[in-house]
C-alpha cells in the first residue's frame, strides 16, 4: 500500500557533450536551476535532494555524491545519493519518489549528473575495475567484451541479425535531430552502422552510445504542494528496481530477467496489467542498440524475440503504434550515465505535459509513459511509470 501520491512539476537539463567546461557541480546547478524555474519554485521551497551519479572513477572524485551537494542545492538540506551503476539515472527519481511518498519530505529535487571526460585516455578504462579483481580482471576484460557477449547470445537465441539491431541506432539518432541538447544526432542508414568500425564484434562503432558530460534534474512534490504550484502535475504511479546475482557468467544473458522483475514491481504499483496497451510510449535504456530490443522484451512491451520485428515494422517509430525512445535515447542524445537515465525521465515528463515540441509522440500529448535504465554487471533494472 503506497502512502502518498508523488508529482513531478518541473524538469531541466544541460546540453550533452563529449567534454564540457562546467564542473560536475556546475552541471548539477544548471540542470537544477532550470527544473526549479520550470516548477516555479526557488531552492528555499526544497526540503531534500537526491543525487544520482555513477562511478566515482568517471568524474575522478571519490565520494562524488558529497562533492556534488553544493552544486545540487543540498547545503542545509537532507541529501541522499542513490547508486545502482548504469541504472542510477532512472533510479534517482525513484529515490526522490520515496522521499515524498514516505511523508518524511514534501519536496525533493532530484539531480542526475555525470562527467565522463576527466578520465584519460578514455572513460572505458574505468570499466576494467568493475569486474572481479581475481577471476576476471587478469584476463584484460572490458565492458565492451561483455556487451558483445550479451548481444551475441541474444542474436543466437532469437535468430536476430545485425541489420535488425542497426535499425534501432538509425531510428534513435534520427529522433535526436529534434532534441536541442543532443550530442550525436544524425541521419544514418543501416549500411552506415554495418560498415562502421568493428570494436568488439558483433558490436560496431555506431551500435554504441558515446561517453558524455551532462546533467538533468526534476522537482518532485507531494499532492498538496503540487496543487499550489501547478495545474498540470505529472504523477509517478509506479516504481520498480531489481539487482540480479553478481555472477553474470552464470546467467542466461539473452533475457534481462532483472528488468522484468523491476517492471513487474512498477506495473503492480501502477495497476498496469497490459503494458503495451496501457502505456503510450517508453523511454527504454539504449546504451547499445540491441539493448533497446532486449529491454523492450524485459519490460513485457514485446514477447521474447519479438522486438526486432516490431522495430522492422515501424511500430517503435515516433509516429508508430508504440513509440520507443522518442527523445533520441542515449544513442542520439548522448550517454552521461546517470544524467542519461534522468534525461529519459525528463522526456516522459515533457511528453506528458505536451511540451516535447517536434518530438511529441504521434504529434500529440501522451497520457502515460515509462522510463527504464539498466546497470551494474548486466544485472540491474530500474523502472518508473508516469501519468499525466
Amino acid at each position: 500500500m503506497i502512502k502518498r501520491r508523488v508529482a513531478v512539476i518541473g524538469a531541466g537539463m544541460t546540453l550533452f557533450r563529449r567534454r564540457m567546461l562546467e564542473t560536475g557541480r556546475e552541471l548539477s546547478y544548471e540542470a537544477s536551476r532550470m527544473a526549479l524555474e520550470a516548477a516555479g519554485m526557488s531552492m528555499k521551497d526544497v526540503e531534500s535532494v537526491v543525487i544520482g551519479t555513477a562511478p566515482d572513477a568517471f568524474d575522478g572524485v571519490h565520494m562524488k555524491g558529497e562533492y556534488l551537494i553544493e552544486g545540487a542545492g543540498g547545503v542545509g538540506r537532507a541529501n541522499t545519493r542513490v547508486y545502482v551503476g548504469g541504472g542510477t539515472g532512472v533510479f534517482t527519481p525513484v529515490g526522490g519518489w520515496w522521499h515524498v511518498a514516505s511523508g518524511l519530505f514534501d519536496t525533493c529535487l532530484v539531480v542526475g549528473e555525470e562527467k565522463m571526460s576527466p578520465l584519460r585516455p578514455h572513460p572505458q578504462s574505468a570499466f576494467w575495475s568493475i569486474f572481479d579483481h581475481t577471476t576476471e580482471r587478469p584476463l584484460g576484460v572490458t565492458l565492451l567484451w561483455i556487451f558483445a557477449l550479451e548481444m551475441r547470445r541474444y542474436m543466437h537465441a532469437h535468430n536476430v541479425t545485425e541489420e535488425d539491431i542497426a535499425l534501432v541506432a538509425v531510428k534513435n539518432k534520427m529522433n535526436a535531430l529534434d532534441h536541442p541538447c543532443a550530442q550525436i544526432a544524425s541521419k544514418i542508414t543501416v549500411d552506415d552502422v554495418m560498415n562502421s568500425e568493428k570494436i568488439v564484434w558483433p558490436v560496431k562503432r555506431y551500435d554504441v552510445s558515446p561517453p558524455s558530460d551532462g546533467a538533468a534534474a526534476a522537482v518532485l512534490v507531494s499532492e498538496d504542494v503540487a496543487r499550489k504550484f501547478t495545474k498540470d502535475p505529472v504523477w509517478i504511479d509506479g516504481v520498480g528496481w531489481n539487482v540480479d546475482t553478481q555472477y553474470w557468467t552464470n546467467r542466461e544473458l539473452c533475457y534481462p530477467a532483472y528488468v522484468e522483475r523491476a517492471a513487474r514491481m512498477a506495473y503492480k504499483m501502477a495497476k498496469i496489467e497490459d503494458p503495451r496497451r496501457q502505456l503510450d510510449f517508453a523511454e527504454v535504456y539504449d546504451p547499445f542498440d540491441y539493448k533497446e530490443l532486449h529491454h523492450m522484451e524485459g519490460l513485457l512491451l514485446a514477447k521474447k524475440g519479438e522486438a526486432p520485428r516490431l522495430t522492422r515494422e515501424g511500430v517503435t517509430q515516433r509516429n508508430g503504434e508504440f513509440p520507443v525512445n522518442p527523445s533520441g535515447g542515449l544513442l542520439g542524445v548522448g550517454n552521461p550515465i546517470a544524467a542519461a537515465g534522468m534525461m529519459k525521465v525528463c522526456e516522459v515528463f515533457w511528453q506528458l505535459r505536451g511540451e516535447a515540441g517536434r518530438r511529441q509522440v504521434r504529434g500529440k500529448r501522451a497520457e502515460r509513459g515509462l522510463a527504464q535504465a539498466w546497470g551494474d554487471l548486466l544485472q540491474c533494472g530500474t523502472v518508473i511509470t508516469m501519468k499525466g
Partner: protein
Amino acid sequence: MNVPITERLAAGSEVRAWEDTIPFRYEYTAGVAGEKFLRGLRDGEILAGLCPSCGLTSLPLRMYCVDCYAEVTKSVRVRPAGVVRALARGARTFAYVEFDGVKGGLVHTLIGSARVGSRVVVRFRPKRQRVGALSDVLGFERSG
C-alpha cells in the same frame, strides 16, 4: 535456519590475497567559475563571487550562491590580505585564511611564521612564472 559458513580456513598457510593496481589518469576542467578564478590568480588577483540576489561575497568563486542559490556571474577583486584562522604545522605549515568581508577562505602554505589571528598577505609567484593554477600563489606571509 540461517547458518554461517560451515567451512573456514584453519591454517595460516591457507591465507591468501590477490594483489593488483588500478591506475587512474585525469584531466579536469576548472569549470566556468574555476577558469575565471585561475585566470585571476595568473593576473595576481583573488576573485570572489558576488551574489546579485543576496549580496553575499564568497570564496571560492562559484557559479551559484551557496546561501540563496542564485546564479553568480559577477566576481569582485578581494584585497589579497586577510586573517589566519587555523594552522597545521608539519613538514610544511598550512594556513587557512579568511579575507575581509568575504565568506569562506583559502588554504595555502604559510611562508615564515604567524599565529592564529595574525594578518597576512597573499604572496604571488613572479608574473612570468604564473600559469593559471593554484601554484601561482606561493603562500601567505605576515604583513607589516
